[in-house]
């Protein structure tokens, strides 16, 4: 099983001819992903990393039956690329690009309400189901197939934690980087729902950070709806107010947005919260032991 991307995934890369697009297409192909097409307007008919390139999404989907997309196009053109994906019924769209304007994302989010599709990102590492499909920029080498689902607002922190899980021989079902922007396509809750329903997933790791209140909402959801154990980690306890900490969405603006507030909400909901990344792997091991 796994969620969002798996053996059935037929991936199209939007912005395949750019430096990032080309580099990561090579890596996604290497890790066994069925990358069926690329799209770059004006570059139709060419081939990149043995993947055929089309001018439009419509053509790419018609010719190859693509059902998922990963987006590398520059920020200024990202919303357009997402709309193009949604209009031709791509079911899973992963937008890697950083720096998409917030107002563009509000329009995308509004359109998503009437579309039966999942947008991951933007400003995210993408989605990877080890051994099945890789629609991401995550380093495939640190993953191993298994039964822990990972959902995170941060890329490198995900790698750090996944690496520690793998070193303890704890594999992963799917890792989802939902992105570090103020407005993202999919929040924790939607991913938690899918991981809860995924028969392969036994335990979930949730990695949050300062900014917004998505972690609080997720905590409530975990408490009321989830049967699987969740281990959480929050970054940014030392972040000062009013400063953007790398991710556009990682900013303390009072109240709910602090790491303390998030951490308290998690604890109130009875979620195991780690104080540092290494402790996450320990707590996951404990949770899995209790379950078996």
């Amino acid at each position, binding site marked *: 099983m796994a969620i969002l991307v798996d053996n059935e995934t037929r991936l199209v890369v939007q912005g395949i001819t750019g430096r990032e697009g080309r580099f990561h297409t090579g890596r996604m192909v290497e890790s066994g992903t069925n990358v069926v097409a690329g799209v770059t307007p004006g570059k139709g008919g060419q081939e990149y990393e043995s993947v055929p390139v089309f001018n439009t999404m419509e053509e790419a989907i018609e010719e190859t039956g693509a059902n998922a997309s990963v987006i590398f196009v520059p920020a200024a053109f990202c919303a357009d690329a997402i709309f193009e994906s949604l209009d031709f019924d791509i079911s899973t769209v992963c937008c890697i690009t950083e720096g998409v*304007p917030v107002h563009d994302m509000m329009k995308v989010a509004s359109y998503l309400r009437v579309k039966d599709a999942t947008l991951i990102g933007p400003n995210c590492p993408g989605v990877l189901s080890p051994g099945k499909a890789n629609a991401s920029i995550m380093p495939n080498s640190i993953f191993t197939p298994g039964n822990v689902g990972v959902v995170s607002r941060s890329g490198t922190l995900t790698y750090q934690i996944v690496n520690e899980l793998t070193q303890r021989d704890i594999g992963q079902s799917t890792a989802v980087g939902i992105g570090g922007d103020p407005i993202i396509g999919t929040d924790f809750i939607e991913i938690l729902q899918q991981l809860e329903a995924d028969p392969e997933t036994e335990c979930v790791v949730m990695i949050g950070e300062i900014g917004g209140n998505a972690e609080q909402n997720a905590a409530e959801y975990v408490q009321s709806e989830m049967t699987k154990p969740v281990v959480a980690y929050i970054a940014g306890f030392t972040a000062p107010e009013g400063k953007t900490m790398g991710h556009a969405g990682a900013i303390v603006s009072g109240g709910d947005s602090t790491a303390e507030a998030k951490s308290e909400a998690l604890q109130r909901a009875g979620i195991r919260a780690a104080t540092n990344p290494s402790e996450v792997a320990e707590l996951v091991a404990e949770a899995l032991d209790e379950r078996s």
Partner: protein
Amino acid sequence: MDLYEYQGKELLRQFDIETLEGNVAASPEEARAAAEQLGGPVAIKAQVLTGGRGKAGGIKVVEEPEDAEEAARQILGMEIGDHTVRQVLVEAGADIASEMYLSILVDRAEKQSLILFSTEGGVDIEEVAETNPDSIVRIYVDPLLGLLPYQVRELVFDAGLEGDVAKGVGQVLNNLYKAFTESDASLVEINPLVATEDGRVLALDAKVTIDNSSLFRHQDIGEMHDVEAADPGEQRAQEAGLQYVKLDGDVGILGNGAGLVMSTLDVVAQAGGDPANFLDVGGGADAEKISEALDIVASNQQVKSVLFNIFGGITRGDEVARGLLSALEQSEIDLPIVVRLDGTNAEEGREILAENTPENVHTEETMLDAARKAVELAQNGSR
């Protein structure tokens, strides 16, 4: 990116929102000249990118132009928060009948714009939310539909406005929504929005934040950015494409990836240390970038030790180690540096570092050990 009040008001005027007449002054003499030109009583207002200037004494009202000079002398150079006042806005007076509050912001959870209006203006909206929540009208706007006429009517009626004020607030709201969307703002706040005795509605203050990600399509707004207001290290980092935030401690911190660096700061604090900064060098092992990053961190005179936390992902640990070594050669930093390398080919990377590193560089395997070491070195170190 935050705009100064006078810049925010310029923006509002571009969208036909009325403000009081005023001029910016950087010296007491300029302030007096501006006051003479306006005539009558004027307000001298500190221009700083932080709140609480009224309480700090950063706003003074004077009756005569010659008093404007003295008032400006007192305000210029004043420290408000950790900001120094370098400019004042000299603004004409008005006959105020009532004070209201109006703002539009990006609601992250709802993923829509949220309009907030209250008939209680001139005070903090959070305070109003506590003391008189019923006076706040909230309206969400679907960005694909825009602000609809019925929503404007609803706000005006819900707030109990009548006559000229109702009409005026409606107009300001339409214009403000236009300003908000067309300028890619993440916040526009008018507090207070005032009704005058003669029935006009105008913006007495303006707080505007523009989404940094949108600046590629707002060159004019980008040029308003005040580089002098930023920390010199932050300025330098911005030019180098690095994410840097200066803090107050003595352990300099850098790493790859925003989340990992944030987490490193936390672990250093848990180990009893005080982070001096946040610096994300981004992906890759580009020696030049790492060297620039190290220099920025070390240029903060408070820093006594540096912790470099790297996760080798796509960029392998051995490449990172080589990049780091050549960066260390380029920069001539003699502060103790703790390197913690993990991820793909981390062992190879650590071996390369162990064989070649200068004396001031220590390598550690785990984040926790590295943090403890960096804290210990900072506590024993001096410069």
